[in-house]
């Protein structure tokens, strides 16, 4: 179906079902229960899941297929955001033109940076991209203030022209981004018993775009172009002596993944119409590398899983504070309770990075293929047990 083989089609369908039902899946705990703080089904976070999913899918097209590790991908995210906000300021609050401009601008930007950076490979390529991203950050933060808003970031104002829209709403407010009259922030809450589920237009818009991006990524992975990219990662020397020019292939991959990042940036601005230079900071570039490696480099679904995991921890674990910990361990005797809380405390709240670091280390050491490899191992173990059971019942012969 859709030009995919059976396995990829079922993967796509599973991802589609999961994203469409995310408001239910991410809110498994009743709203008033003590576990409600682990619910992730609120619009802001769900939007971040899919937007960073897109970012990581695109990054994986470059890093997963060609093996070129870009350390400056956040620059494209930032450029996309700025482009989208400018579209909101100048044209209209419709998100479609904003996103299109975001993708085109970041694509052109990626073409320029890629053309220069891809003269080198390996660590030198990474350093070049990092340098470009940091230069972009510094420029956006200072010199380019008229375009980027500098330290305060680029924001909408009441006197923006918005040629095809209105500068102000009748009430005198700044209009909000929407899709042909549907506002991105529009949210419906449905209560089912003790549970509360939130449905947000912006989330579903992002989710549909993520599914399209995911579908496109599968097509690229399975195409001859994708095969050539894997060949570049595998043995560039052989590729050169097989009559293929690696440069345009890597550049095309770089531009495609830059456009994915721009798309993510445009969507971020569409959900919340402001853009700041900090989106281009090198830690933001590092984050997408972590997401991809955590989920599984070169796998289709890995980057999405990695993005989800990191964003979940960033938003959920960081909200746990010492009062909550005391609540959890209240059943213990006083001295022991304080002791346990003191041990756990560094890993929560602002210390969530520590937890992330430990998980990342464990994954890299024990599951070099990321979370996807973990899933595969579990599936294999299940299969083996099943077949063992089956053979145990049907025959009494030894296995070998």
């Amino acid at each position: 179906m859709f030009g995919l083989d059976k396995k990829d089609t079922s993967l796509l369908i599973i991802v589609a079902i999961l994203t469409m039902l995310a408001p239910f899946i991410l809110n498994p705990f009743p709203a008033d229960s003590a576990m409600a703080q682990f619910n992730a089904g609120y619009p802001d976070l769900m939007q971040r899941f899919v937007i960073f999913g897109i970012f990581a899918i695109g990054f994986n097209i470059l890093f997963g297929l060609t093996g070129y590790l870009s350390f400056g991908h956040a620059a494209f995210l930032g450029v996309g955001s700025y482009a989208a906000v400018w579209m909101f300021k100048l044209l209209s609050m419709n998100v479609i033109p904003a996103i299109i401009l975001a993708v085109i601008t970041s694509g052109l930007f990626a073409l320029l940076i890629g053309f220069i950076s891809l003269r080198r490979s390996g660590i030198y390529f990474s350093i070049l991209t990092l340098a470009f991203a940091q230069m972009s950050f510094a420029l956006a933060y200072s010199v380019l203030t008229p375009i980027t808003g500098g330290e305060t970031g680029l924001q909408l104002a009441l006197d923006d022209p918005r040629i095809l829209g209105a500068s102000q709403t009748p009430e005198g407010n700044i209009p909000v981004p929407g899709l042909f009259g549907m506002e991105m922030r529009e949210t419906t809450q449905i209560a089912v018993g003790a549970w509360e589920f939130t449905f947000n237009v912006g989330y579903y818009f992002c989710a549909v775009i993520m599914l399209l991006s995911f579908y496109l990524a599968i097509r690229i992975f399975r195409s001859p172009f994708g095969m050539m990219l894997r060949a570049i990662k595998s043995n560039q020397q052989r590729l050169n002596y097989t009559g293929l020019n690696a440069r345009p292939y890597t550049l095309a991959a770089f531009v495609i993944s830059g456009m994915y990042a721009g798309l993510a940036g445009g969507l971020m601005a569409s959900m919340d119409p402001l853009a700041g230079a900090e989106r281009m900071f090198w830690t933001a570039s590092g984050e997408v590398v972590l997401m991809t490696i955590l989920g599984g480099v070169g796998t289709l679904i890995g980057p999405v899983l990695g993005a989800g995991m990191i964003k979940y921890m960033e938003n959920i674990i960081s909200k746990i504070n010492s009062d909550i910990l005391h609540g959890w361990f209240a059943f213990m005797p006083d001295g022991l309770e304080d002791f346990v809380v003191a041990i756990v405390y560094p890993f929560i709240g602002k210390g969530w990075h520590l937890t992330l670091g430990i998980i990342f280390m464990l994954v890299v050491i024990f599951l070099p293929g990321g979370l996807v490899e973990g899933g595969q191992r579990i599936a294999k173990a299940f299969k083996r047990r099943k077949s063992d059971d089956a053979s145990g019942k049907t025959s009494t012969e030894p296995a070998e």
Partner: protein
Amino acid sequence: MGILEVKDVNKRFGGLQALGNVNLSVAENSCHAIIGPNGAGKSTLLNCLVGKLIPDTGSVMFDGQSVLGRKPYEINQMGISRVFQTPEIFGDLSVLENMMIPIFAKRDGAFRMHAVEHTENEKEIVEQAEQILEDLNMADKRHFHSASMSRGDKRRLEIGMCLAQQPRLLLLDEPTAGMARADTNNTIDLLKQIKEERDITIAIIEHDMHVVFSLAERITVLAQGTPLVEDTPEKIKGHPKVREAYLGETA
């Protein structure tokens, strides 16, 4: 006039004269071996032919066109394929995919943005690749992870990948180095078969005299960067200069 004409090629690395006035002519559809002791400049010469090195002076003409200053992929597209001393294949890819890449390169040129069609829908490419694997007796291995194969199989695959491009000149750099005897003999048989079945020129660099004398029609002996003699295998065998170069004997 041969298909490959090397004229007065010199190459210096600092104080070392790696190649000094090398002249070489490889006749079309022949098998020409280049032999010589270690450090004779065989690999340097080969690297000058495929664009990895550029000679200081002299010319290298392939089929009437100069190859100098061209990139390796451009030279390959002209019709020169190269087999490396250690088999260079796409280790992360399956055997079938390895075989498909040169066929794509032959059909689509050095670059083609071909990003949406499913690879398996490229029926003619898949069929061609499977045909070559069949010819190499590797059809049963087509879904193997190619890095996990034996060295002999990797070499077979690499030669097959070069043939898939239907090159006019096949360059082999010590194709049997580090191979077991059985693998060496298999490789010799494969190359003999290729020579018989195709219109192809083969230039081979080799240490193993067994390989050289079973394949070559003409032999050039290189010593200290200069061709010593060029002749048929029979005459080379007993040539005093060759014995001297190889064994260090003074006549």
